[in-house]
C-alpha cells in the first residue's frame, strides 16, 4: 500500500512502467473474459466487439453521442479526485448529480418565461452547482457531526434524491394533463446548449468537462489546499496536529465534488444529446461509473480523461448490440465490470508481491 502510494509521487500523474504493463495485462484479461462470456451465450466475440466499436465511432452522430455521455463522467471524475484525495468515499455522487438536475430544472421552469435563454442557461448551471453542493455538504455534515460513515450517508441521500425526482415528476412538475414517469415536459431547443451543425456536440460541454479536470489537477498538484486534502486523506490525526482544519477541509471536498456533480446534472438536462427534461434515474449511473474511472486511473487526473472516454464509448457502443443482433445491451456493463475487476486484481496482486519489506 505505502509503496504504491510513494511510487505515485506528488502529482499523481506519473505511471511507472510496471503498473502500465499490469494495466495492459488487465485489459487483455478483461477482453478474454468478456469474450468467454459472449461465447457462452452463443455470440461471436469478434462480431460483438466490432459492433461496439462501430457503434461508438462508426459515424459522426454516434461519436457525438459518445462525447455527450463522456462529459458528465468527466465532471464527476474530476470531483471524485478531490474526495478520494481527502480519503472520502463519496458514494452519494449519484444523488448530487440528480439534485443538480432538479435544481437546474426548477430554475429553468421558473425563469424560462421571463429571461433570455442564455441567462436562463447560466443561472440554471449555477443552480445545478448549488444543488450538488448542498447534497454533497449534507453527506459531509452527516459524517462530521453525526458520525455517519459517508458511504451510508451517501447511499441514504441517493435514495432521497431519487424519490424527490419521482415526486416532482408526478406531482408539482407533471406534464400538462397527466403525470407520467417518462418525465417532465421537455424544454424547447432555445434552452439546449448550442451545437455544431451536423456534428451534434456542444463545444461548451466538452470544454467544461476538460476544463474542470484541468482545474482539479492543478488544484491537487500545485496548491496548499490540494496538499491539505491529501494530508487529511492520508492521516487525519497528524494533519490536525500540524494545524490543518480537517473538518472544514472535509466539507470543502464534499462541496467541490458535489458542485461538479451538480454541473453534470445540469449537462444532463441541457446537453446536446440529452432528453431535455427531468426524468427518474436521470443520473444514469454516471456517478458510479466515475468512481470506477477514478479507481482505474489510480487517482490520476491525466489518466481519468482517456479512461472516462473509453467507458463512455463502451456504454454507447453496446447500445448497438440489441439493435443489430438481439443481444442485450447490458453486455457493455459486463465488459466494464470485467475490466474493473481485472484491474483491481492486478493492483491487489501487485501490492502483494511487489511490496517493499520492512525490517
Amino acid at each position, binding site marked *: 500500500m*505505502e509503496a504504491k*502510494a*510513494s511510487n505515485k*509521487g*506528488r502529482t499523481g500523474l506519473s505511471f511507472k512502467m510496471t503498473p502500465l504493463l499490469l494495466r495492459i495485462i488487465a485489459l487483455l484479461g478483461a477482453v478474454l473474459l468478456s469474450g468467454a462470456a459472449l461465447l457462452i451465450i452463443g455470440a461471436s466475440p469478434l462480431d460483438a466487439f466490432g459492433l461496439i466499436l462501430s457503434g461508438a465511432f462508426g459515424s459522426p452522430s454516434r461519436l457525438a453521442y459518445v462525447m455527450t455521455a463522456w462529459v458528465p463522467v468527466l465532471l464527476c471524475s474530476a470531483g471524485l479526485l478531490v474526495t478520494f484525495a481527502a480519503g472520502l468515499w463519496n458514494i452519494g455522487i449519484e444523488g448530487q448529480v440528480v439534485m443538480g438536475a432538479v435544481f437546474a430544472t426548477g430554475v429553468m421552469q421558473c425563469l424560462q418565461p421571463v429571461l433570455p435563454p442564455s441567462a436562463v442557461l447560466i443561472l440554471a448551471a449555477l443552480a445545478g452547482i448549488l444543488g450538488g453542493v448542498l447534497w454533497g455538504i449534507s453527506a459531509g455534515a452527516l459524517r462530521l457531526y453525526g458520525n455517519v460513515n459517508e458511504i451510508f450517508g451517501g447511499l441514504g441521500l441517493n435514495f432521497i434524491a431519487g424519490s424527490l425526482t419521482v415526486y416532482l415528476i408526478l406531482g408539482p412538475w407533471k406534464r400538462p394533463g397527466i403525470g407520467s414517469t417518462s418525465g417532465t415536459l421537455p424544454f424547447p431547443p432555445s434552452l439546449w446548449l448550442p451545437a455544431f451543425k451536423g456534428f451534434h456536440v456542444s463545444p461548451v460541454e466538452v470544454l467544461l468537462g476538460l476544463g474542470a479536470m484541468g482545474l482539479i489537477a492543478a488544484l491537487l498538484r*500545485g*496548491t*496548499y*489546499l490540494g*496538499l*491539505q486534502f*491529501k*494530508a487529511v486523506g*492520508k*492521516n487525519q*490525526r*497528524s*494533519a*490536525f*496536529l*500540524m*494545524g*490543518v*482544519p480537517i473538518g472544514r477541509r472535509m466539507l470543502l471536498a464534499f462541496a467541490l465534488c458535489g458542485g461538479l456533480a451538480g454541473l453534470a446534472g445540469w449537462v444532463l438536462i441541457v446537453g446536446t444529446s440529452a432528453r431535455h427534461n427531468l426524468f427518474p434515474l436521470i443520473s444514469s449511473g454516471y456517478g458510479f461509473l466515475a468512481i470506477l474511472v477514478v479507481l482505474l486511473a489510480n487517482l490520476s487526473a491525466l489518466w481519468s480523461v482517456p479512461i472516462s472516454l473509453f467507458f463512455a464509448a463502451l456504454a454507447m457502443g453496446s447500445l448497438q448490440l440489441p439493435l443489430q443482433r438481439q443481444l442485450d445491451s447490458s453486455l457493455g456493463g459486463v465488459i466494464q465490470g470485467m475490466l474493473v475487476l481485472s484491474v483491481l486484481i492486478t493492483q491487489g496482486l501487485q501490492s502483494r508481491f511487489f511490496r*517493499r*519489506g*520492512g*525490517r
Partner: protein
Amino acid sequence: MKVELKAIHKYFGPVPANDGVTFSVEPGSLHGLLGENGAGKSTLMKVLSGVLSPDSGEILLDGRPVSFDSPARAVELGVGMLHQDPLDFPPLSVLDNFLLGSPGRWRLDRSGVRHQLLALLAPFDFQFDPDAPVSDLSLGERQQLEIVRLLWLGVRVLILDEPTTVISAQQRAKLFSALRRLTEEGKTVIFVSHKLEEVTSLCNKVTVLSHGKMTGEATMPCPTDRLVQMMFGRSITVRKRSNVDLGGPILEIDHLTVSDWRLEVKDFSLNVSAGEVIGLAGLEGSGQHLVTRVSAGLLRPKAGRIRVAHRDMTGEPYHQFLEAGVIFMPAGRLEEGLIAGMTWTEHVALVERHSPFWIDWPLTARKAARCIREFNIKAKPDTCVEELSGGNQQRTLLALIPPHPRLLLLEHPTRGLDIESTESIWGLLLDWTRSGTAIVFMSSDLDELLDRSDRILVFFGGRVRVLDARQATVEQLGEAIGGQGFK
C-alpha cells in the same frame, strides 16, 4: 540448545538487512544482541524464529541444520520469539490467550490448563488473574504471559526483541530475574537491545551488529567504550544538561483539574520558565499524558486556568495554542506526527506557507533540502517519511517545528532510539532552551529524566510529586514512580 547461524543473508529490495551474519549461542547462556536502530537485529531474529525466511545461509540447532516455514514450526523445534509489540488478542481472557496456538486440540481442558498456567507463573513471581481480559493487563504483564506461553509450548531457545522499551522499572527487574532463572534451568536466552546498560548488566556474552554485519563479540564484563566502538565505529560523547539562565514564565497552570475516562488529575499547579526543562515521570497513563495534552489545548480542563506567556488560554482551541507557539509532539511518530505516503518536501509545504494559494515547489524543495542538512537527517526532499528510520523520523518532527517555539511538549522524544540519535535530538533541544524555549517532556528512561531535566514531576494514579533532578538519585526516582512518598 545450541544455536548457530551461518552466513545469513536477507535482502529487502536491493538493501541487505543481514549481510552474511554468522554467530553461535551456547546452551544455557544469556546472549545479548546489540546494535543501533536499523542494524538488522530484528530481521536476524525473525529469520531465527521462522517469521522471515533467509535469502541464503543456514540455521543449526544442536548441530543439526533446520529450516522453518512458519513461526509455529520454529516453536515446535524449540525456538520462540517475544516480539516488540505483543501479538495477543486483547478482548480474550488470559487463559484463552494462553490456549490459543496450542497445537492440535479439539477439546479444551480449561481447568487443567489453568493449573498448569498458575504453576508456571509461580516460580517467576508473575501474578495475574487467568480470567481477566488481556486488555486489562499492562504491556509488561502481557509480555510475561507470552513468555510463559512459549515455555509451556516447549520452547528451549527464547528470543526477546527489545523487551524493555514499554515496561516499567519494576517489571524490568522482574523480567531480568526471570531470564536469569531460565538460563539456570538450561534454557538459552537471546536478548536483543540497543541499550548498553541492559546488555552489560544482564548478558554473559554479546554479539554486536552494525549495518547488517557482525562487527564484534565480547564476553561480559566488557568496557562500555569498546561496545560503543563496535556499534558505531567511533565513540560518542554524552552532553549533559546545560545550565541555561531561566527567563520569564512561559506556561502557568493554576489549580487545574483535568480527566479522561479513567483518570483524573486534580488541583494541579505548575509554572515553567523560559529555558527550563521539565521531565514527566511515572508509569504509562498515570496522568502525564493529561498534563501534556491539556497544555497543548487538546483536552479541555474541568477547572483551573492555563496561561501561555501571560495570555489566558483556558478553553481555547488547539490551533490557538499552536499559534501561541505551543508545539505538541506525540509519541506515535507515524500515527499522530508525520503523514505516511507524503514526502519530506510536502511536509514542509504543510507547515509553512509562502503564498496564499499556489505552492512554489522548487522553493519548498530547496527549503526542505536545507532543513535536512541542518538537522542531519538521512533523507532526500522527495523521500517519503515512512521510509526513514525512527531517529530520522524524530528529527524530521523537530525540523518541522516553526521557528522560535515558546513551549515544546514532547511525549517520549527518544523512545526506541539508539545513543547516537538520542544525543543528536537532545543537542537540538538544548539549543532551543538556550534561546528561551521551555520544554516539558515525558519519558520512561530514568537516566534520561535525571540527566536532562531541571525538575521532574512524578505521576502516580493522577497524583504528582516534584523532584529536583540535580539532587535526586535513580533509586529515589524509581521509588517515587512506584508510588512512594505520595500523600
